[in-house]
C-alpha cells in the first residue's frame, strides 16, 4: 500500500477505486460510494444530455449501464464536457449488447453533429449577389463553421425524427438517408434531409471544390437555396 502521506499516491488509489466496487484503504465504503455515484451519475447525465435519442432508444437503465462502460473506457480528456462523446458512436458500433441495433451509431453521429453545430464558431453570411456572375462554376464557397454533413446506410434520420417530442408515428422508410446539420443565425440547430446528389455536392463544397466541380451530376440549386435560407455560406470567392 502507498504511504498515507503521499498526496499523489492517495489520489491514484482514490481514482482507481472510483471504477471498482471496493473503496481505497481506510475509507468508509458508504461515504466513498457517494463520490463514486457522483462521478458515474454525473458522466451518465452529461452523455444523456448530448445523446437524448440514444437514451430514449435504449431506455434509461440500459443507457446508464452503457454510459458507465463508455465512461470507464473513454473518460473525458478535459473538463469541457461539451467536447466529450466524440468516440461514443464508434463505441456503440463495437458494443456487443447493441449489435442488434445497427442504426444506433448513426443516430449517435447525428446527435453528436447537432452538438458540434450548436457550439460552433459564429459566422457572418455572405451576400448571395456574389453568385450572380457570368460563370459561377469556378466560385468556391466557404461554409459556416456549424455546417455538418451526415449520412447513414439506415433510415437513422427518420428514426431520430420519430423520437422527437410530439413526432407522429408511422412506417419507417428504407435506408439510406442523408442530411445537412447546422446552426441558423437565430441559434436553432436544423437537420435538413438531402437527396444523395445534394449530399455529395455538400461534401465536395466543404472540401473546397469549386461550384462547377461540386455540382457535377446534380442540380445544386436546391442545396444553395437551403444554404442561403439558413445563412450558412460565410464567403464566396474565386
Amino acid at each position, binding site marked *: 500500500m502507498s504511504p498515507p502521506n503521499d498526496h499523489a499516491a*492517495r489520489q491514484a488509489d482514490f481514482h482507481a477505486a472510483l471504477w471498482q466496487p471496493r473503496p481505497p484503504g481506510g475509507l468508509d465504503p458508504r461515504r466513498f460510494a457517494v463520490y463514486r455515484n*457522483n462521478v458515474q451519475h*454525473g458522466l451518465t447525465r452529461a452523455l444523456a444530455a448530448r445523446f437524448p435519442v440514444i437514451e430514449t432508444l435504449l431506455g434509461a437503465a440500459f443507457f446508464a449501464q452503457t454510459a458507465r462502460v463508455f465512461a470507464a473506457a473513454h473518460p473525458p480528456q478535459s*473538463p469541457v*464536457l461539451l467536447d466529450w462523446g466524440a468516440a461514443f458512436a464508434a463505441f456503440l458500433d463495437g458494443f456487443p449488447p447493441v449489435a442488434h441495433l445497427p442504426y444506433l451509431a448513426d443516430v449517435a453521429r447525428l446527435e453528436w453533429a447537432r452538438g458540434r453545430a450548436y*457550439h460552433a*464558431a459564429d459566422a457572418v453570411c455572405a451576400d448571395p449577389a456574389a453568385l450572380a456572375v457570368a460563370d459561377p462554376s469556378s466560385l468556391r464557397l466557404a461554409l459556416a463553421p456549424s455546417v455538418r454533413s451526415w449520412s447513414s446506410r439506415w433510415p437513422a434520420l427518420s428514426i431520430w425524427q420519430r423520437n422527437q417530442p410530439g413526432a407522429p408515428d408511422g412506417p419507417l422508410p428504407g435506408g439510406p438517408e442523408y442530411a445537412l446539420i447546422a446552426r441558423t443565425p437565430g441559434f436553432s440547430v436544423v437537420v435538413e434531409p438531402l437527396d444523395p446528389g445534394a449530399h455529395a455536392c455538400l461534401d465536395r463544397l466543404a472540401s473546397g471544390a469549386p461550384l462547377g466541380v461540386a455540382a457535377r451530376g446534380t442540380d445544386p440549386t436546391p442545396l444553395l437555396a437551403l444554404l442561403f435560407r439558413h445563412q450558412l455560406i460565410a464567403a464566396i470567392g474565386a
Partner: protein
Amino acid sequence: MPLPARAGIGFKPAHFTQILQDPGPVGFIEVHAENYMGAGGAPHAMLDRLHADHALSVHGVGLSIGGAQPLDRDHLARLQGLLARHRPESFSEHLAWSSHGAAWLNDLLPLPYTDQTLATICDHVDQVQDTLGMRMLLENPATYLTFAESTWSETDFLRQIARRTGCGLLLDVNNVFVSAMNHRFDPLDYLAEFPLDPVGEIHLAGHEVDGTADDRLLIDSHARPVADPVWSLFADVLARTGPLPTLIEWDNDVPEWPVLRAEAQRAATLIDETRHVPAQ
C-alpha cells in the same frame, strides 16, 4: 469592479428571457466556466446579453486545484480566453481535485489537509492568479469523507491559503452545513473559526438527506430550496460581515423562474437587513 453585495442566481438557459424581463432582486449571475468553452453560438450570445444588465461571476469546476499533478495548462489557457472574452467581475474555483492523469472525473473530490497539500494548492492558486491576472476566490467543499492524515483544520487550511496567495474565499454555507452534519461537528463552531475577511462571495444551495438518524448523510445536490438551518447560518454570517454577494445555486431539477426568483428574494431581504447596520 467586484460583484455587488446583492443576491445572484446560477444562470440556466431556460430562464434567459425571464431574467431579462423580470429580474426581481437579481444583482449578478454566475455560470460554470466549462459550459461556456465552446467556440460560439447561443451560450456566448446569452452571456453577452445578460452581462449588459447584470454583473457576472465565472465559477470554474475543472481546474483541479487540489490535484497532486500540475495544473492543466490547456485548461488554464481556455479559462484565460473565456475571461478575456466576457470580462467577469469575479472568478472562483474549488478546494477540491477532479482530474487524474488525462482523465477528468466530473466531481469535486476531497483531499487531506497537510503541509504537503497546502504547498501544492498555494502553488496552484499562485499560478492561476498570475495567469489570469486577477484575484480568485476559493470555495470550501462539501465533503463525505475526512482523512486520518490531515494535520490542519479546514478553516485554518483555507486561512493559510488566503494568507499565502492573497486569494479571496467563497463561503458556501450549505457546504458548511452538509459537512458539519456528515462529520458530526457544530456548523457554528466551524463558522466561528472561518476567516471571514477574505470572503468575497457566499453560496447557498439545497441538499438531500440520505439514510436516517445514526447513519444519516447529507448530499450536496443543488436540486432543492435552501434548507432553513442554512438560512439561519447565512443570517449569522451576514451579522458578522455585513452585506456580501450571495448566490442561489440550483443546478439540478431546475425550477420555474418564479421559484428561483423567490429564493433570491429571500437572500436579498436578509442582505438588505444588514445594510446600514455596523457589522459585529
